[in-house]
């Protein structure tokens, strides 16, 4: 199987078949993560730059572990302490990265389209670990992986609610694209200030109240709420947000009996989700973290080994 993409910028570039390949590859790597010695030599001698121009301990750590378990060398290039803080342009950073000649760049940036900008200027693989409000494809793929572990690969007819700050969420955008492509019904739920004005652009049904959105749902993905949204005038105090939109046991009772709860983390307990729910049996939050490593191993493997496979084919 030769992976057809140099870069992973968003899920919209993937076909159903590509998604299956990622899922199958991740499943095979998942097993490594439960071994006593969690390391294979697959990417020995390969180097992966973790370029995080916006802080994200979770995603960065997840990629770091994924790379190391495949024996790749990983190098962090963080915003703080780098020349980025001294006003260097992204283009200059790209030229620097390219000169280091890595096999893959995993990047996180606060500007929508930044991964695309870099990918067009470097010869190695670029994996988008989140760009602005635009896309977070690896999160969407790991969310899908997590759901398939529970539901199997037949997703048509399932209903997933995405709850919270949709407008500013790359996680939401990528999940909507991926889930709707696979036949899942996606419902979005948020106050209007946290939705884009033209919600039809997103291609999912929109609810402004939580209860009807939850009715019969098979899974609820809570999004992380940036607490500054209050200061930006998008929300009253957090207590009020929680009153209207916090996922609680009572509200979740409206959903399907086997409903699953997800959250990309880090959680604001009591704001996005009631604390007891986050730890309850139907919570998949820790499964998401575990899936994250396996899916990212798969993506690093597919992108880094792509060229050699193509050459020998």
């Amino acid at each position, binding site marked *: 199987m030769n992976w057809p993409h140099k870069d992973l910028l968003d899920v919209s570039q993937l076909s159903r078949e590509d998604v299956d390949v990622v899922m199958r590859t991740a499943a095979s790597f998942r097993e490594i993560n439960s071994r006593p010695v969690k390391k294979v030599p697959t990417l020995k001698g390969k180097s992966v730059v973790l370029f995080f121009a916006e802080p994200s301990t979770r995603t960065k750590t997840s990629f770091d572990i994924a790379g190391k378990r495949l024996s790749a060398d990983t190098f962090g290039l963080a915003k703080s302490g780098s020349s980025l803080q001294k006003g260097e342009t992204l*283009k200059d950073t790209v030229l620097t990265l390219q000169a280091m000649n890595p096999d893959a760049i995993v990047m996180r940036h606060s500007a929508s*389209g930044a991964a*695309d900008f870099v990918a067009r200027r470097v010869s190695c693989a670029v994996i988008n670990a989140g760009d602005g409000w635009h896309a977070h494809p690896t999160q969407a793929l790991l969310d899908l992986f997590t759901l398939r572990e529970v539901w199997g690969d037949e997703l048509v007819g399932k209903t997933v609610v995405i709850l919270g700050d949709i407008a500013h969420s*790359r996680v939401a955008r990528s999940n909507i694209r991926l889930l709707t492509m696979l036949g899942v019904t996606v419902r979005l739920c948020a106050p209007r200030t946290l939705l884009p004005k033209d919600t039809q652009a997103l291609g999912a049904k929109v609810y402004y109240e939580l209860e009807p959105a939850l009715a019969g749902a098979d899974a609820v993905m809570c999004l992380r709420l940036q607490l500054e949204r209050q200061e930006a005038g998008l929300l009253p105090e957090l207590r009020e947000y929680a009153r209207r939109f916090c996922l609680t046991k009572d509200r979740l009772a409206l959903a399907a009996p086997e409903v699953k709860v997800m959250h990309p983390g880090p959680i604001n307990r009591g704001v996005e989700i009631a604390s007891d729910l986050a730890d309850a049996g139907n919570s998949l939050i820790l499964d998401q973290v575990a899936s994250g490593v396996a899916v990212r191993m798969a993506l690093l493997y597919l992108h880094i080994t792509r060229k050699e496979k193509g050459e020998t084919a």
Partner: protein
Amino acid sequence: MTLPDLVVANVEVPGRDGFWTLCCAQGRVLELVPHDPAAVFPEARVIPGRGLLLMPAMTDAHTHLREPGQEWKEDIASGLSAAAGGGFSNIMCMANTTPVNDNASVTKLMLRRAADSWPNGPRLFPVGALTLGLAGKQLAPMEELLAAGCVAFSNDGEPVADTELFRHALEYAADLAPVIDHCEDPYMAKGSGANEGVMSARLGLRGQPDVAEALQVARDILLAEYLHAPVHLAHVSCRRAVELIADAKRRGAPVTAETCPHYLLMTDAALFGYDTMAKVNPPLRTDDDRLALMQALREGVIDILATDHAPHAAHEKETPFEDAKNGITGLDTALASLWELVRLGKLTAEDIALRFAWRPAEIFKLPHCRFATGDPADFCLFDPEESWVVTTESLRSKGKNTPLLGQSLTGRVMLTVVGGHVVHELARPGA
């Protein structure tokens, strides 16, 4: 009797049938007469006009030159060169330089640079700052600026949020010179560069809603009517603003308005792929907005065309979309790009002469040429069939930031004359 020293023979003129001969002497129009093949002009330079269109030279009421302060983007010499190549005789340069043009010494510096680099034109007419430092806190010394050579006042780029101060600015300027306002509610997603709509939602970009513009347009209209003081509304980009202006004009409000070629030619679809060249403020809007602007321009609801020429250096656009500077370079391509609309039958050459040459000069009381005896000899010759590709080399502006790069345009300014002086001339193959 004066003998002509400059003649354009056998040329077509928008709005007039047949072929014409333009005779000029000592920088002024002598006469525009039906072409007579037997006429000879022994003392004159005779320019053959066959296949060309004689257009009045244009006035750009909204240009950003970057001198003083940001000469790497553009300086006055290169900006005037682009103006000459684009067929302009007059350009009005905005005050957002570094330092800001809020005192006579900056105005005088600009005028001296223009005179040194282009002594025979195109002519530079500085626009003075409306408030000191464009800070929106205190009025600039408008009489001083006027005396130094400014022809209008504007806070362009930094809309005045304080309505009380803006009121006083209009009152104070009313006896001096027109006020040009950049209409954008500065609290609503300032400078985001993308229209709030389907495209911004898909791309995950902060959007600037059209109502942010319309709110400020409505404010300005109400103040202009209340104070009986004129306001010129800069770079109108959306239907909502057009509707407000049409209404205001029906009531006789003292407002005039401009739009730019890019709002007539493009929509926010150009942002696809995060193309920073299409990032401009106000942002490119929807096709519905574009059509409303076209109609408003034909009907005179929008009075004039202006380029909003905003040159930037390559590295200021070679960034992610959100980090890129706003603006499109426009002087070089204004007429040629609009010609596409003439070819499609959406505008006429007369519309362009009226909206890009005569009306702006009238509004701001600048010299212009209607081809009447005694008018300044300000004209350009346009080849409507000449096709050319917009490349970094073909643009005379230092700013190469246009979504037209790489595109082929049909129609080109072959020669520009300001006050009887040829300031731009391209060799015509076969002529």
